[in-house]
């Protein structure tokens, strides 16, 4: 696959090895993502796609290799101000549940911005965009999966990110919310936001995805056009065939 070479990649991953405890999850993964791309990371459960995503946004450290965002090492905190991250599930672990408004407002904080003043109009606008104005004062623990996911999306978008990173945003979400999330992601991509999204299937975004990266057992086995069919050994049950990813859910 050919890419324009002049632009600095938004994401540049080189020879990445990542361990969780004693288990090696990623093996020598390399990947470039250019501005404006909408990239889907696919693979079966345990293939390492969420680990790759979490390493790209600086949550997990690499044992070997490098991750750069806009040409800067991911360890530099200011570069994170340009990222919007939506975790797989709300990872909120605290025992005092925040309201939707408080959670979205956290999205305004960054490497150099540690507080906000009063009720920020951007928070109110995002709550309205995701249809949660009426529920703004409800604790997110008392919300449905779909409502909670919308809060997480609003928290990521209130930063006006140049790179949006989403980890299985459709998991456990009702069909109506899935459709509205897909429309939102499509709109952002059309505006030039670079999007990297972990999916089990392309589903509602099949028409919009510009590139698929398929992982198997921590290695990239396909990187290119979603319609491409790499030659795979059908006897190798751990390898995921991209065509399986296109129309149906991968084996659990």
């Amino acid at each position, binding site marked *: 696959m050919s890419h324009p070479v002049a632009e600095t990649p938004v994401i540049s991953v080189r020879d990445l090895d990542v361990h969780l405890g004693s288990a090696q999850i990623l093996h020598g993964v390399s990947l470039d993502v250019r501005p404006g791309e909408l990239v889907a990371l696919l693979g079966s459960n345990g293939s390492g796609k969420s680990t790759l995503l979490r390493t790209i946004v600086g949550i997990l450290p690499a044992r070997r290799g490098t991750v750069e965002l806009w040409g800067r090492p991911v360890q530099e905190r200011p570069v994170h101000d340009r990222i919007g991250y939506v975790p797989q599930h709300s990872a909120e672990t605290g025992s*005092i549940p925040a*309201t939707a408004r408080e959670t979205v407002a956290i999205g305004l904080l960054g490497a150099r911005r540690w*507080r906000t003043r009063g009720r920020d109009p951007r928070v109110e606008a995002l709550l309205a965009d995701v249809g949660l104005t009426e529920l703004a004062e409800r604790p997110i623990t008392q919300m449905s999966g779909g409502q909670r996911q919308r809060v997480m999306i609003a928290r990521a978008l209130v930063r006006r990110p140049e790179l949006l990173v989403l980890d299985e945003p459709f998991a456990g979400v009702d069909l109506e919310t899935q459709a509205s999330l897909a429309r939102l992601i499509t709109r952002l991509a059309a505006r030039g936001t670079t999007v990297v999204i972990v999916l089990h299937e392309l589903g509602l975004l099949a028409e919009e995805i510009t590139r698929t990266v398929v992982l198997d057992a921590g290695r990239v086995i396909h990187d290119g056009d979603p319609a491409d069919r790499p030659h795979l050994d059908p006897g190798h049950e751990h390898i995921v065939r991209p065509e399986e990813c296109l129309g149906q859910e991968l084996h659990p």
Partner: protein
Amino acid sequence: MTVTPWDLLTSDIMRYPLIIAVLMGVTAPVVGTYLVQKRLSLLGDGLGHVALTGVAVGWLVGAWVQTTPHDLLAIPGALLASVIGALVIELVREVGHTSRDVALAILFYGGIAGGVVIIQLAGGTSQSLMGYLFGSLATVTGTDLVIALILAVIVLAIGVGLSQLLHAVTSDEEYARAAGLPVRAVNILIAVLAALTVTLAMRIVGALMVSALMIVPVAAAQTMVIGFARTMRTAMAIGVACSLGGLVLTAYVDLPPGGVIVLLTIAVYATGLGLRVARGASSSGAGAHAR
């Protein structure tokens, strides 16, 4: 002649303890909110125990350099020891080789054992630690007040002034990392704030009960309001009311102030819980009636 609460507030004996009680009541729940959020409710207890070792070390150093009074360095010693203890706990949490509850347990035992051994080396007895274990109004000095004021200003400036940052890190550390927030610095900061609060409050409620004033007002507030900021503000109000109320009450009835203050916070928690259960029962009853 009847002593009115105003007489108490303006009396020379009670003025310092009352000011410290207000400072303690307002600051302890601020730190407690973050500890509850991080599920580290027992950290304050562990630090209270370590502070005892610091008190004993302060006595020992005071005995060596012959300070007057001999326990002049007790509170600075407690401050230093609890800050070091907080940093060690945070390091253990970060490295993750030892489980957090085991690390806290070691802090508990090591703190109390170190206290009784070192106080003996300093020429005192374990009785000398009683005022620090359970609080002692009679021994509150002007120096204690100045230290408490400085600590309270630091805790409130950071705990309230940067509440959104601290909330973000304590509620979802992974998101905070992805967003570029200074996660490590915030975790260390919260542990140090807990140590400062322990030192501030131990003169009034004592090292054994200091953690209760951090945690119980937050638990009580959770029965009454929703949302992080509202919980913190309500807990601060409960903390101040119980600290002041407890101190005034013990001026009329001969009871230990630390214990009374903590029991008052528990009474507020129990009342809040009871009212919430009653509200839930009445709303579900009304719903059933409507059906």
